[in-house]
């Protein structure tokens, strides 16, 4: 019985290995809203890599809430590269599993973020509730849709952007900032676990008056689900969201894929990668490589950075989002 089951497991492993036929196979573990971008990017990279090295490379994708994806890599998902929503989720892979060095974020330019984004508002056409800025979100009778900061990377950026605005608006009086955040979260009717879930709730289910979303997610939703039904509102200020990328050292060494994995990430910084990022509504760090029309879609916004306002991700996570942190306190008094 036991033997038969072991034999069965062996057959299954063989089966699952036989599927990958390419010379090199890379696994990119990413977060929710990057699906469309990496589909195009992987095809472009495969072509470039074939020309450069003569090798066929096949890139496999896994998408999900950033926290959950990080968790899977810690538990043994064999990612060659991770491209997640925020630094903390890669910090955790370094800290808990030790699969890459703690200073991974210094290994690539711009704190390992080849593209950036920010948080904007998606409202219903004509903006019937006249939502213009962060202050409007806390008014009574406004339904605000955001995912759960505990599980979603985008939601953590949402939270920090609102917090940063409130700090400026209330002269850094933390009691007032907390009161504002509490009022804002009183207006949240649904907490989905990921950014995509929230978009669906807002767009398809008709819940709420405003969706706090990644800029790229808002544009994509607008294009895919109804330019005539929604519009994007850029608030007076927002946060510079930096989704970082990294090679997972322990896994590439095991698979012998370090060269290809490194080239994959470098290609994100190359002109072609930058152009594709802009086309998929990410703000490229080298806008000169992107199409003019694509770059023109990004409004000028005052953006605060995590580093200037909150410090590093480890400290920010602990202060705001860990068990018993500020988010829990705010939600408890809601």
């Amino acid at each position, binding site marked *: 019985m036991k033997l038969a089951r072991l034999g069965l497991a062996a057959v299954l492993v063989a089966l699952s290995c036989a599927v990958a036929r390419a010379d090199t196979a890379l696994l990119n573990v990413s977060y929710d809203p990057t699906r469309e971008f990496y589909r195009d990017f992987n095809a472009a990279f495969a072509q470039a890599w074939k020309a450069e090295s003569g090798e066929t490379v096949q890139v496999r994708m896994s998408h999900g809430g950033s926290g959950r994806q990080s968790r899977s890599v810690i538990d043994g998902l064999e990612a060659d590269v991770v491209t997640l929503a925020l630094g903390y989720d890669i910090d955790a892979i370094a800290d*808990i599993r030790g699969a890459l060095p703690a200073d991974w974020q210094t290994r690539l330019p711009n704190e390992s973020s080849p593209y950036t984004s920010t948080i904007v508002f998606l409202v219903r056409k004509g903006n019937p509730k006249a939502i213009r800025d962060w202050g409007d979100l806390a008014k009574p009778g406004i339904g605000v849709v955001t995912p759960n900061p*505990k599980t979603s990377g985008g939601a953590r950026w949402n939270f920090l952007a609102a917090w940063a605005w409130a700090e400026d608006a209330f002269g850094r009086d933390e009691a007032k900032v907390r009161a504002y955040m509490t009022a804002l979260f009183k207006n949240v009717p*649904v907490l989905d*676990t990921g950014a995509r879930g929230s978009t669906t*709730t807002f767009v*398809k289910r*008709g819940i709420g008056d405003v969706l706090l979303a990644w800029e790229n997610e808002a544009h994509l939703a607008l294009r895919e689900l109804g330019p005539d039904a929604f519009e994007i509102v850029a608030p007076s200020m927002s946060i510079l969201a930096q989704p970082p990328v990294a090679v997972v050292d322990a896994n590439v060494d095991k698979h012998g894929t370090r060269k290809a994995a490194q080239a994959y990430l470098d290609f994100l910084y190359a002109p072609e990668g930058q152009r594709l990022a802009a086309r998929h509504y990410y703000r490229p760090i080298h806008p000169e490589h992107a199409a003019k029309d694509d770059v023109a879609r990004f409004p000028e916004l005052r953006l605060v950075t995590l580093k200037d306002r909150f410090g590093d991700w480890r400290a920010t996570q602990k202060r705001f989002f860990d*068990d018993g942190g500020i988010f829990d306190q705010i939600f408890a008094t809601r």
Partner: protein
Amino acid sequence: MFARSPSPKVIPGFGLALGITLAYLSLVVLLPLAMIPLAAFRLAPERAWAVVSDPRTVHALALSFGTALLAAAVNAVLGTLLAWVLVRYDFPGRRLVDALIDLPFALPTAVAGISLAALYAPNGWLGRLLAPLGVTVAYTPLGIVVALVFVGLPFVVRTVEPVLEALDAEVEEAAATLGASWSRAFRRVVLPLIAPAVLAGFAMALARGVGEYGSVIFIAGNLPMVSEIAPLLIAIRLEEYNNGAAAVIALAMLAIAFALLLAINLLQAWNRRRIEA
């Protein structure tokens, strides 16, 4: 130790059958499940208690068990009604309805969740009708009950049907000759006979509902302290790299579920003895 049980065995195959049962059960269920207490007890007792007594945990557990109990109760009534209609009446499409009863077993829970959310959302087919009445189902605890009623619907029907089918006409006739009205005969004669089956179906629907995840998360709204079910809280704790807390909540769920099931099984055994006596 089992081989020396009290009664002499005429039928062969005890060792083989019990061997397979215990080996498989241990490998697939017991050994993996042992990981839950193992991980939970790695936590210091006061930290474990802090996790269990956290208002959010208490609320999630109460919500999961409360909605599952409510849905199982709805299904006990609805299931008995459906079984009665299917066994007793002849109407066009009876076989079709009978076959459809098993649909919730067959439809993937995630699909059920998506389609229920699409139905009951304020802009959905049913949500649009309910909204003017001030009833919101989607993204409230009521939505959880609806999902669990769907998921648990077949259990009571399928346990009660065969019992009604086998119900001896003479018993009813006797009641009729004694001059009992239909409703009285139903209450005094039929109901006690089908009660064990209803209870068994209730228990299965309850057990299934407590842990249900796929269909619920799409329709619940997932707000902490409002519509966050215990399995979701476990998933969230896991994603926060908090294995210990996840295991503690899982252990609490398992303990309560096991106690409920054991109580229902004991109730059944007591009921059987009472009827036989």
